[in-house]
């Protein structure tokens, strides 16, 4: 009744192919975007920025990257932590080596460097498939972390091996370093996420996305009809690592401000991002965002509710939180194995027919 296509007539091919064919959706999207860009920054403080929004943006970017590789192209990868580290270290070297570059260019360049590394580590995918490939990408994870640990050039030979982001400004406002305004970092990260989620959406709807999905569904058949597996798989690795590298650069420079490689990018990060896309929905842009929100924000929510809300002791609250999150994951998977995005799609389908059941 409210949410329907009746009365929507498309007069151009372009309109027909739009991402949001129903005008209700389009309005909702633009209103939400306007809210996020124009309204939220006025109400932000450090806590909301550092503990809620920035983690969500950074991990959403990483989840987008991994979803392109695993959800759209079917190559399971557990090297996310290592590629984020590449992005972080690349941005560190660029920030300290080329002080006149602005943060946006540095982030994009770090992403490109990570893309190059991603292509190299993606080569085994031409021979290995499935879970074996996942474990092979773990080699990338461990090797990259070891490499950053070993060669002092990466951390400018500091005695502790820690890297810290020096201050960089854009349009006169500090983006990195300790003296940043929470609204500024929020807008910077949100801007990047918005632009690149848009890019990702259009990539996966285009020819290259279709070749990825062909490889995912049945790569031998895809090869037979002319999809080049080498180009497709390596391009998936490249684009995915680009996004993940940018996430790593944002993590290091904008969100955290410092990183210590064994603690910032361990194997847990790789697993967490994989969980995000599985819970959110493989092969769905919205799924990446929702999954990232789920995994980064649910623990914070539980902590606030259990410890501050109900005054439980911190360790019991933490244990209960872990059990609840595990239980919720299992519950979600039983209810809708294809992730929250699939639940959302089903809900929208039902809404289109509401109040009729079918």
């Amino acid at each position, binding site marked *: 009744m409210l949410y329907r296509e009746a009365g929507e007539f498309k007069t151009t091919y372009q309109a027909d192919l739009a991402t949001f064919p129903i005008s209700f959706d389009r309005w909702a999207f633009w209103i939400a975007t306007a809210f996020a860009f124009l309204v939220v920054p006025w109400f932000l403080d450090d806590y909301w920025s550092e*503990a809620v929004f920035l983690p969500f943006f950074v991990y959403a970017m990483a989840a987008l990257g991994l979803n392109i590789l695993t959800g759209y192209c079917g190559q399971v990868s557990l090297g996310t932590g290592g590629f984020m580290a590449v992005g972080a270290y690349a941005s560190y070297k660029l920030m300290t080596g080329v002080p006149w570059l602005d943060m946006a260019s540095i982030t994009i360049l770090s992403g490109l460097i990570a893309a190059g590394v991603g292509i190299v580590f993606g080569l085994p995918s031409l021979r290995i498939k499935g879970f074996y490939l996942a474990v092979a990408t773990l080699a990338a994870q461990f090797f990259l972390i070891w490499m950053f640990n070993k060669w002092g050039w990466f951390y400018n030979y*500091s*005695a*502790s091996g*820690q890297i810290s982001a*020096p201050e960089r400004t854009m349009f006169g406002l500090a983006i990195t370093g300790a003296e940043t305004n929470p609204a500024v970092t929020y807008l910077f990260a949100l801007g990047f996420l918005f632009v690149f989620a848009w890019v990702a959406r259009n990539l996966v709807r285009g020819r290259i996305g279709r070749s990825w999905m062909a490889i995912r569904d049945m790569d031998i058949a895809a090869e037979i009809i002319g999809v080049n597996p080498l180009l497709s798989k390596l391009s998936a690795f490249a684009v995915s690592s680009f996004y993940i590298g940018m996430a790593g650069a944002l993590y290091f420079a904008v969100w955290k401000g*410092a990183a210590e490689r064994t603690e*910032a990018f361990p194997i847990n990060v790789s697993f967490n991002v994989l969980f995000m896309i599985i819970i959110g929905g493989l092969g769905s842009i919205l799924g990446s965002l929702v999954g990232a929100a789920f995994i980064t924000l649910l623990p914070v929510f539980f902590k606030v509710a259990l410890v501050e809300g109900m005054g439980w002791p911190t360790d019991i609250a933490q244990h209960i939180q872990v059990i609840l999150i595990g239980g919720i994951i299992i519950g979600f998977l039983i209810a809708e194995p294809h992730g929250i995005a699939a639940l959302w799609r089903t809900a929208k389908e039902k809404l289109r027919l509401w109040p009729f059941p079918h």
Partner: protein
Amino acid sequence: MKLTRFAVAAAVALAVATPASADLVFPMLSYRTGPYAPNGIPFADGYHDYLTLINERDGGIGGEKIDIRECETAYNTDKGVECYESLKGEGALSFQPLSTGITYQLIPKVTADGIPLHSMGYGRTSAANGKMFPWVFNFPGTYWDAASIIIKYILQEEGGTLKGKKIALVYHNSAYGKEPIRTLQELSKKHGYELILLPVDHPGQEQKATWLQVRKERPSYVLLWGWGVMNQVAIKEAAAIRYPMDHFIGVWWSASENDTLPAGDEADGYKAITFHGVGEDFPFYADLKTYVYDKGLSAGDGSNKGYVLYNRGVVAAMWAVEAARTAQKLTGHAKITPSEMRDGYEALDVDEKRLDQLGFNNFTVAVKITCANHGGPGLGAIQQWNAKTKTWKIITPYMSADREVVDALIKEDSEAYAKENDITPRDCM
């Protein structure tokens, strides 16, 4: 979906937001879960119990009750930052993250937000230079002090010379583990020993290759710079290759009962460095019994009393309380702000007389902090494990580090940090 979640969290947070209280807020970043929980629990218990003692026995500090805010970090940097951000607006007076990783993250933040950070014997060593790091304190000693003191002890044991000897460092392959390397390298140039570096990857559950190297190289002494399961496995592996335990010396974070108990009798004779006493044989324990244990107010299950890390938590809390008292004296009012707390830390002077007054006779070193020296006296003593009685015993008097070497390194590192981050050191009159 995302918006709903935010709305609910916001609603819950706002609904239970505590109004600005009249108490002194002491945040407690602890890890009672996660991979380092066995070490985090006794420290958190000790810290909590001492603050409870002050509330119960003295009615708080200067009449103001202490509001202990515990926040679980699970040794995870993300959670640590989240805890910091959520507590800093509540008037938090000082942060002690008990994690080198979280400390590194918080150093720029506390400097921007103006809250003192006490990274007691861990964290960024060059923060001992108070001119460069006005908001960070790491007394009573740093890792570089510890390394130097251990070498001094070895020198004593070896009759004053180490020429031609081999000393191995088995370290956790992280920022924490790498801290002593520069100092040990400088000292090896000075004293003529050969330094063998043996990193162990996190978590350190499997160290066969490392200890095979120790077998091959046959160093006279092995230094252990580990944390968590790496310590237990290292001690077991050392016992398995029959390495003489009294030549195996750990840093103060590889020196707790958790590390030696799993190895049983074979860990007998293992040594480590410390900066406070062990066991319950101190006057303040009587007070703890009367005001905390007997009243059922102890944090945790009370099984950690007297343990090394429990005592460490107590001493950390003691210094925090004394800093608050000093701040109250300096400003003349009881309700101090974080910036005044920092001044209190910087003017901290807990000498032997004051330690006796507090019931801490012979428990720890006298500490005097100045504007330029946030690293304290840099003293340490060696303790040894007795596997039969399952206790530690301090076997040397408190020794000082080689200040010449350590101070030069502190200066170099803090200057590099200042250059990289465009910080001008302040003047200390």
